[in-house]
């Protein structure tokens, strides 16, 4: 049995049956990390010893374990706090910061019986679409090491794709789970805003940030969301998703589902091969009994500017606390308090982060607030309305995740505006707080994975996962692995 090619649920079942020990699973993943992380740079921190100790401890509980994911090794994006383990947000400014607390999702995963292998590389403070802005160097795409894995959860997508752990926990502010999942050929889900606690997620843009899973398939996503979701008293914006047992409700039956294709998402700027693959996905679902309808979604030209104004505004405030006074990294050789702030922040943040802090500071400034920030909030309301209208006509939307497949390393950073525009299909979902899922739906002529996005109404996770599950019953894109891997 080639352990690292199993899904998380398959490994969980093998552990439950006693075919594999928790420690063997952890060791297999750590071996894969040891073999591949040097070139992939997917992990910032590998906690081998902790993982093996924990695996050994968990073994005793296998018999009584309730979760189908008990004992399955995984990894966590480095913007999610882990007690006593360095949590850097891939930034110099956090230094070796090891929080004295766990994020609520980390607590939930620990209670469920997860084994963490370590912390995953990402764009600095989750700002970026390629995982190249990390202070710890760029992550590489396992399908083509000269290419980016997408971002900001690029380490997470690369790790799951390459078999360095069976699933990963990422975060998605404007597409940061879905887009790297698409570039790396894995299944990723951004849940409805509020249904997964943000406590312990180092904020980029608080009103848009959402934690979610990156997995081998939709069933794994469902199983993990069953663990993550639910109200948390430590997060005032958290809600109970009330979608019950997502894993148990995966029937693969899409009979009568109405799937909307927003024509505005298939126009100019979309790569032809991507368009063909995504539309082919619609055909697969139609063949299983879903109805496919075209509809208009006339707000696409506003979503990227609105997103970048709101996200940057919130980021400028959220990142102000990194000032060298209390924790993390502090510059040397300052002569005044202002000097300490200026030097620490100038040297501690990378250029993409500084660009967004400056943008956010500008749009909130007295005299500009109404022209930018308030207007962006108005667009946000308009986008919500557009989705409401769309969901009167269909049960979910099917769109591309990104206009093209994974770019070459270095290509995107030279043109940040182009990079921002490539977020066009994913950011509206965050603006409206909706659930969005990215699933592998094909490969382009360069052999790079293509992703399709399913978007649902609030709390529509169940139907998205079911549609993805149905699609994956009839296709094997999700089973392909990099380096010429065959279906497991």
């Amino acid at each position, binding site marked *: 049995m080639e352990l690292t090619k199993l899904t998380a649920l398959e490994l969980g079942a093998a552990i439950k049956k006693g075919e594999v020990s928790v420690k063997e699973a952890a060791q297999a993943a750590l071996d894969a990390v040891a073999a591949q992380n040097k070139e992939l740079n997917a992990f910032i921190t590998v906690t081998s010893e902790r993982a093996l100790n924990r695996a050994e401890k968990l073994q005793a509980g296998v018999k009584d374990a309730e979760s189908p994911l008990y004992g399955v090794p995984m990894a966590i994006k480095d913007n999610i706090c882990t007690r006593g383990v360095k949590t850097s947000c891939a930034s110099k400014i956090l230094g070796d910061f090891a929080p*004295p*607390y766990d994020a609520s999702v980390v607590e939930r995963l620990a209670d469920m019986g997860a084994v963490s292998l370590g912390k995953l590389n990402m764009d600095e403070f989750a700002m970026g679409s390629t995982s190249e802005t990390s202070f710890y160097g760029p992550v590489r795409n396992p399908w083509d090491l000269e290419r980016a894995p997408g971002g900001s959860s690029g380490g997470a997508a690369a790790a799951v794709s390459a078999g360095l752990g069976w699933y990963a926990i990422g975060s998605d502010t404007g597409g940061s789970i879905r887009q790297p999942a698409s570039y790396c050929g894995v299944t990723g889900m951004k849940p409805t805003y509020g249904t997964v606690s943000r406590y312990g997620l180092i904020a980029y843009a608080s009103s848009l940030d959402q934690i979610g899973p990156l997995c081998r398939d939709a069933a794994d996503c469902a199983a993990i969301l069953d663990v993550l979701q639910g109200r948390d008293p430590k997060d*005032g914006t958290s809600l109970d998703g009330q979608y019950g047992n997502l894993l148990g409700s995966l029937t693969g039956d899409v009979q009568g589902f109405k799937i909307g294709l927003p024509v505005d998402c298939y126009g100019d700027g979309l790569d032809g091969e991507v368009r063909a693959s995504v539309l082919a996905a619609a055909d697969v679902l139609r063949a299983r009994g879903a109805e496919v309808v075209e509809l208009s979604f006339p707000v696409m030209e506003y979503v990227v500017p609105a997103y970048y104004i709101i996200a940057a*505004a919130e980021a*400028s405030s959220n990142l*102000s606390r990194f000032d060298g006074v209390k924790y993390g990294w502090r510059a040397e050789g300052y002569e005044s308090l202002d000097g300490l702030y200026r030097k620490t922040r100038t040297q501690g943040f990378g250029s993409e982060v500084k660009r967004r802090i400056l943008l956010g500071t500008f749009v*909130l400034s007295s005299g500009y607030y109404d022209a930018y920030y308030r207007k962006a909030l108005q667009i946000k309301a308009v986008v919500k309305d557009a989705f409401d209208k769309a969901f009167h006509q269909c049960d979910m939307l099917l769109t591309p995740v990104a206009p093209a497949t994974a770019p070459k390393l270095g290509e995107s950073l030279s043109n940040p505006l182009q990079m921002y525009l490539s977020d066009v299909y994913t950011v509206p979902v965050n603006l409206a707080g909706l659930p969005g899922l990215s699933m592998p739906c094909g490969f382009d002529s360069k052999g790079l994975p293509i992703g399709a996005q399913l978007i649902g109404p609030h709390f529509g996770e169940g139907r998205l996962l079911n549609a993805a599950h149905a699609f994956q019953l009839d296709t094997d894109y999700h089973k392909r692995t990099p380096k010429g891997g065959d279906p497991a």
Partner: protein
Amino acid sequence: MTWETVIGLETHVELATKTKIFCACTTRFGGDPNTHCCPVCTGMPGTLPVLNKKVLEFAVKAGLALNCEITRYSKFDRKNYFYPDLPKAYQISQLYLPIARDGAVSIRTAAGDKTIRIHELHMEEDAGKLVHDPWIDQTRADYNRCGVPLIEIVTEPDFRTADEVTAYLEKLKETLQYLGVSDCKMQEGSLRCDVNLSVRPMGSGELGTRTEMKNLNSFKAIARAIDYEARRQIELIEEDRRVVQETRRWDENKDATYAMRSKENAQDYRYFPEPDIPPIELSEEYLDGLRAAQPELAEAKRARYQAEYGLPEYDSRMITSDCVLARFFEDLTALGAPPKQGANWIMGEVLGALSARGMEPKDMKLTPATLARLITLVGEGTLNRNTAVKVFEAVFDTDGDVDAYVKAHGLEQVNDDGLVRETAAKVLEANPQSAADYRGGKEKAFGFLVGQVMRELKGRANPQSVNRILKELLTQ
């Protein structure tokens, strides 16, 4: 030219909740540095604020008591600025939709009655404190106060004199203490007041350029700073110079204000809606519940004490000057003590004992039941007033048992006329000169003789009996 001073106040009041506004840390004053804090109130990365419901309740109660319109859909906003005492580099406050607006407070000064309009009341979190250590030339941050809940109460520019300001602050303090939402201790910083002041020619309808004064730590300082700043501004204008809009700091020792920062250097706080706290929606049921639970405030109590108990206005004011005293008085009366006697004991002995010990009424151990018993014993004639005062002193600190103390010290009043007569006769025999003096018309000598009889009886005699019997014997 005559000038008019125009003043508006921004008062920050720490709420008396047990825990902080966004976490479960204690709000207790003091404590070793950084012992009353957690990852949330120190703004550690990834942590989130969760609104303490009690803070909302206290703010709404204050808003209702200040006759404000309560905002049914209210929000928090972030006020962004860098300073080491503010660990998130933003303060969670309310700018766009404060919890209460458009209130009014009536005040009384020697010049008459007046209404001060309240512009708004909003909730926010307090910042920490920086302590500079000159020995090592380092500044240290203490985050214990971070996240202590505050309400800021902003008035319209309705004040014209320092007297009005003082009357308003006293009324505000009294109201908030009666509500139980704050202890309003200026010396501990739980009531802090910034004064916005401008001057204009008397009769002018326009406002002059204002300055904001900070670091005003007592009512006295506020009054002095107002006088100083008004004079400074008038002098500037009369010298054809201009008042600069700026923040000024009151220096208690130098009795003067100094410029801290001008409007040109003013910070841009880049307020925007706080995304981590959902909007607050208040139902009519919630507000009705709080309205029904509002306690009787000082003004209502004063009127009632006069009408219901026949207390003089002076007494009513004294007793309601502190809500603990008022409650003490009401409990005492409910236990059967005659209201006027109860009031006399409170205004005399109770306040005297507190002031001698430098204590606040709320720290008093003495219970109404103990004082009621003492008053009953005096009423029954078991104790005379002077002895009762001694017993009061003896039981005050520990709320001791009055009956046990009286018994143990044999303090019951001597109501035995035979014994008083016998003692008085002995005293007259021993002091023939005084007796003769009295008979010769020297009234003073009588007092001496009464004193001697009382001394013989260890002060326990009923003074009326002593007077009557001595007079009888002296006129025989």
